[in-house]
């Protein structure tokens, strides 16, 4: 903070705090946006190799400038507002989509010191903010004045409400095991080696959380909100140029966010798998990024592997499989932790 306080020395205290916070926000958002850009590139490369082809390799050395070219193209394209659409809501929808995807990053701990807002109710805050993401999709579908877009947004609304319940229950398990809602302390609870990570005692909940995360971000195999073979491109069929790009950015920022949360909640966050020499050479932030990348790879792998779910199968999976699984596991945890001497299995 030394450099900043000398630069801002003469300004009132509140403006110094504001400026310092803005710098920190920039330090999160700029790398995030770069990661989003290169995640699209890596996705195309990974899926390409999984399907025995090369993927983008024309722009720049080995195709590394492809996301920059894509971004420029989207920036320069015309934004078409369809006739009969609701102009204000049509423009507002992409903003509503990207806002929660960025806000939730404020409580994600990157290392034990690097967190923008270390709040006590961090887990609840993340759940509340991510649940607002559906408005972008719903409003976009309605404001477009198009049947395809409208169908996409209705599908998305029903799907997100269903999977949010499963996700919330999975987080209840994390809360029971860690005994706190503070994300930084949840990660610190898992210190001391990979066998302390919550993924082992909460393995069913980890699976449920990951699957509902995929469903909440509208990624394959749950991307019926887009469903290009049935409803063209779903909720964003009428969007072009930068407004479309915002939906795209929101989807990928949400993917990275859910991977980061999976890392913090189940995989020990920035902590190394073993507290001995070769593992502790990597700095904590590097461990965090390695784990986030590993989870992100799972997303890409899923996309290259599975066909899209049928809509009624998605609903069945959400309501009749995932929610009962979480309920049973939470009950098992509660009984074991309260009435038996094996409570140490779930929490320290």
């Amino acid at each position: 903070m030394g450099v900043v306080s000398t630069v801002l020395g003469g300004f009132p205290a509140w403006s110094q705090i504001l400026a310092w916070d803005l710098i920190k926000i920039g330090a999160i958002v700029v790398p995030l946006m770069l990661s989003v850009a290169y995640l699209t590139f890596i996705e195309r490369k990974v899926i390409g190799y999984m399907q025995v082809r090369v993927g983008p390799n024309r722009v720049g050395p080995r195709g590394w400038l492809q996301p920059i070219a894509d971004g420029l193209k989207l920036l320069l394209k015309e934004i078409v507002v369809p006739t009969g659409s609701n102009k204000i809501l049509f423009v507002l929808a992409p903003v509503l989509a990207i806002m929660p995807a960025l806000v939730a990053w404020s409580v994600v701990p990157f290392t034990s010191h690097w967190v923008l807002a270390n709040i006590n109710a961090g887990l609840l805050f993340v759940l509340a903010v991510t649940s607002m993401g559906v408005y972008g999709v719903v409003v976009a579908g309605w404001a477009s004045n198009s049947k395809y877009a409208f169908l996409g947004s209705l599908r998305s609304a029903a799907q997100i409400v269903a999977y949010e319940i499963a996700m919330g229950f999975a987080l209840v398990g994390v809360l029971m095991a860690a005994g706190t809602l503070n994300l930084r302390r949840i990660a610190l609870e898992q210190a001391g080696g990979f066998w302390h990570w919550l993924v082992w005692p909460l393995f069913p909940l980890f699976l449920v959380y990951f699957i509902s995360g995929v469903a909440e971000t509208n990624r394959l195999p749950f991307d019926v909100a887009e469903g290009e073979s049935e409803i063209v491109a779903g909720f964003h069929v009428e969007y072009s140029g930068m407004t479309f790009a915002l939906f795209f950015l929101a989807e990928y920022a949400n993917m990275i966010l859910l991977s980061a949360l999976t890392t913090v909640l189940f995989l020990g966050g920035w902590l190394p798998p073993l507290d001995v020499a070769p593992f502790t050479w990597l700095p904590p932030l590097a461990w965090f990024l390695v784990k986030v990348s590993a989870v992100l790879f799972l997303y890409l792998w899923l996309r290259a592997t599975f066909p899209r779910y049928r809509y009624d199968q998605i609903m069945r999976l959400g309501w009749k499989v995932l929610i009962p699984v979480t309920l049973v596991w939470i009950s098992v945890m509660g009984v074991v932790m309260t009435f038996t001497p094996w409570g140490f299995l779930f929490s320290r």
Partner: protein
Amino acid sequence: MTFESLVFDFFAAVLLWSAAMVVVIRNPVKAALFLVLAFVSAASIWMLAEAEFLAIVLVLVYVGAVMVLFLFVVMMIDVNLAALKQGFRAYLPLGGVVALLMVVEIALVVGPARFGLHKVPAPAPLPSHYDNTRALGTLLYTTYVYPFEIAAALLLVAIVAAIALTMRRRPETKYQDPSRQVNVRAQDRVRLVKMPAERRG
């Protein structure tokens, strides 16, 4: 004027404006979206009053779930605005009386006689490590456990009743049985018939 009071004024103004728009605006979808804005502003004001658990739960439950379902329904029904406006004159006196009564009742309960600063002292600012969520949880599951459990049971009954009311057997609707779909094998559906090629006559 402190920074906090500035923030409060801003969110209070947005809250009042959006709440008024919910009633005034014609389009029901826009009205629902303004209600969402009102909830978010109210949550921000609660956050300012250090009630972070209530604020977050308001956003989580009402904005994240209830209003999504509400929008879902409102978007699908085709509201005829002309039919809605038809009885406006006839219902105005009755509606006005009900509204006036409600305003009087609210004023009596939260008016300055009962709710001023001299009656309820401003709460002392709590230390930053104070955990609102834990305090509320402890209260709910110890002191108020019976009212809490009774409310939960009532809600469960309401859910069961709502589902029972809407669940009807409809013989004309086709249902899918996923276990049969999964168990089906190729030989159940396809019969391969071996035929010799036709001999040229």
